[in-house]
């Protein structure tokens, strides 16, 4: 099923045109299913978690690409597939034209240093028994990199780059605060001078007051060093300042992707509308009108048993019969900008201005109503 979709989508993506900038990362039909084991006395597979189900995306050199979706949508799994911490069930990940989907550790070695990762939890991402110097210098040691002036000098430079005291390279992680730890994580990712960094919710575990500073650091790093970022976030607020292109993910699928302005000002997918209305202060330049208000209730359905057809239909206020039987392809809608793709049968108006009536979704009530009676 997912293969069909990605095939039918490929021409659409091509039609969107290949914009400037070397394609660094090309992901197509990427799928990851985790087996669910159960049963007694003999364990066997009783189902699959369809964490990521046939997604396509492209990241160009020096570009920042945002991946947004609620918790449990498969964003981290996508990031881990791209950094090859996980092996895809289907689909391909190619880096600079080289297919690395099933590469072994040895085969990966040449590109290892070019794809790095920043993790979500600053407390579990640093080994408590290693000094900061060992943590940041480790990647260089593993890859046999001997920078001029020695590794220690380079570690000090990196500490300075991320805004930490270079004299602290002998300290242990427990002596730093969350924000400082995350800076150490950034320094570690930079140690190998990568060309692509997958940042998996790098600030969502931090204090709100510190988030902006770490985002600024990442932005500075991205611009000054020309590193491409796949920036994962669970809301659209942080990505807005950071990413040139944004993909919105829901339950293992990309439901909308496009340039930042296009996504933030002319969103078409109902889910994107819902996410945007949750962003506290998206001020639109030159737009004084009141913004629409949508409140999504309930949680993301289980990826073990995702809804048929459109996966968003259990929470969508526009869902109709067609949505339950036919999966909407990710295509460029009429009037949409180049590269702006949406997967929806009944897309919303390309505006985020206030509606006549706020949408407040309560899945319990929605289930009682006859779905087909709703206006389309």
């Amino acid at each position, binding site marked *: 099923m997912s293969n069909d979709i990605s095939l039918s989508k490929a021409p659409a993506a091509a039609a969107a045109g290949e914009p400037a900038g070397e394609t660094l990362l090309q992901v197509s039909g990427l799928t990851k299913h985790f087996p669910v084991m159960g049963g007694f006395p003999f364990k066997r597979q009783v189902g699959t978690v369809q964490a990521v189900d046939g997604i396509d995306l492209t990241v160009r050199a020096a570009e920042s690409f945002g991946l947004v979706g609620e918790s449990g949508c498969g964003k981290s799994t996508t990031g*881990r597939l791209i*950094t090859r*911490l996980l092996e895809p069930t289907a689909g391909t990940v190619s880096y600079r034209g080289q297919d690395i989907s099933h590469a072994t*550790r040895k085969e*990966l*070695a040449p590109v*290892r*240093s070019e*794809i*790095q*990762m920043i*993790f*979500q*939890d600053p407390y*579990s*991402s*640093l*080994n*408590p*028994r*290693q*000094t*900061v110097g060992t943590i940041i210098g*480790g*990647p260089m040691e*593993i*890859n046999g990199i001997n920078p001029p002036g020695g590794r220690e000098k380079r570690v000090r430079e990196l500490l300075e780059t991320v*805004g*930490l*005291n270079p*004299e*602290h390279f*002998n*300290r*242990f992680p*427990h*002596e*730093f*605060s*969350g*924000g*400082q730890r995350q800076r150490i*994580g950034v320094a*570690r990712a930079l*140690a*190998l001078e990568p060309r692509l960094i997958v940042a998996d919710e790098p600030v969502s575990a931090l*204090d709100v*007051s*510190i988030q902006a*500073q770490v985002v600024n650091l990442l932005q500075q790093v991205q611009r000054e060093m020309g590193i491409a970022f796949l920036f994962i976030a669970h809301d659209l607020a942080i990505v807005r300042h950071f990413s040139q292109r944004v993909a919105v993910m829901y339950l293992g699928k990309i439901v909308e992707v496009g340039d930042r302005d296009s996504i933030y000002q002319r969103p078409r997918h109902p889910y994107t509308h819902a996410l945007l209305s949750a962003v506290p202060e998206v001020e639109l330049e030159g737009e004084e009108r009141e913004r629409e208000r949508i409140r999504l209730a309930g949680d993301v359905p289980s990826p073990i048993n995702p809804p048929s057809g459109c996966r968003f239909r259990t929470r969508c206020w526009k869902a109709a019969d067609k949505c339950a039987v036919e999966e909407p392809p990710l295509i460029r809608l009429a009037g949409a900008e180049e590269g702006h793709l949406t997967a929806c049968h009944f897309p919303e108006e390309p505006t985020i201005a206030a509606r006549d009536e706020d949408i407040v979704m309560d899945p319990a009530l929605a289930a009682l109503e006859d779905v087909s009676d709703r206006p389309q």
Partner: protein
Amino acid sequence: MTSSTETTVSGPPGEPDETTTAADPAVAAELVGRSPGQLMWLRFKRDRTGVISAYVVGFFFVVAILAPVIAKLYGKDPYTLYGQNEPGLLNDFGYPIAPNGGMSGRFWFGIEPNLGRDVFTQLIYGIRTSLGIALAVTIAVTVTAILLGISAGYLGGRVDYFVGRITDLLMAFPAQLFFVAVMPVVTAVFVSPVDETPTYLRVVALITVQWFLGWMGLSRLLRGQVLSLREREFIEAARVTGASSWRIVRRELLPNLVTPILVQSTLMLPTFVTAEAGLSFLGVGLVEPTPDWGRMFAIGGEIYQNDLTYMFFPGIAMVIFIVAFNLLGDSVRDAFDPKAAR
């Protein structure tokens, strides 16, 4: 952020964004980081019970190592039958003539009834034997547990399954009964029944049977630790930079397992001392004339109605040793893991 982190945080200057608790000038002033190991050592040194226990345990090990030197200075050995060679030490029934089991300036802890050997040298040599065997078992068990536990936890899948089932199986064995039943078998494998079993072979057999049923607890504990560590992001961070599994085990996992390994082996050693003593007491341990701590209880048990003093010193020494070692183990654990309740 946990409260324990909060107190040790000392933010570097020029980092205004972090609300670090750098209020303590003493903490902020020092620039050298303290490793978790150093912090553990500082905590341990503050624990008086732990320090005293460490000295007591150390004393036993010193005695064991220096037993020949002590015996030489003392002027006697554990083999000579003083009571039989010299008249006037044992009476016609084979019991010491002098009160309190024959204690005197010459025989500090008295004389063994019947054979008439010196109790003091017997005890220090016995401690030497027992501690040596227990230490060897502890090392063998720890190494095995590290290998199997980490393999099971890190590799998972089939390896984990087989190690797990073997663990279950061996844990179901009644250990003491197994030792008693198997010790003669193990020795018989190497020596024909008509020959005298050499002492070293008995020692090897003792170590082997205890090792065989000793490693499962620690192995299971380490497997669990590895399972939880494996999910931590720093392992993934190492893999993203291209680290091999071997490097991850050595550099990322092992340093985080030092605590349970140290604590558990500290608590394990005294149990092996008592187990070995138990085997000797039951007559399947070391035999005469090799001095042995446990066998002194066996002899003591036969004669306690007529000469209670004989049992006194080995018994007191054993009690002190076991208590001190367990207190030490508790202190080490508290020092490593201050959050764990006593």
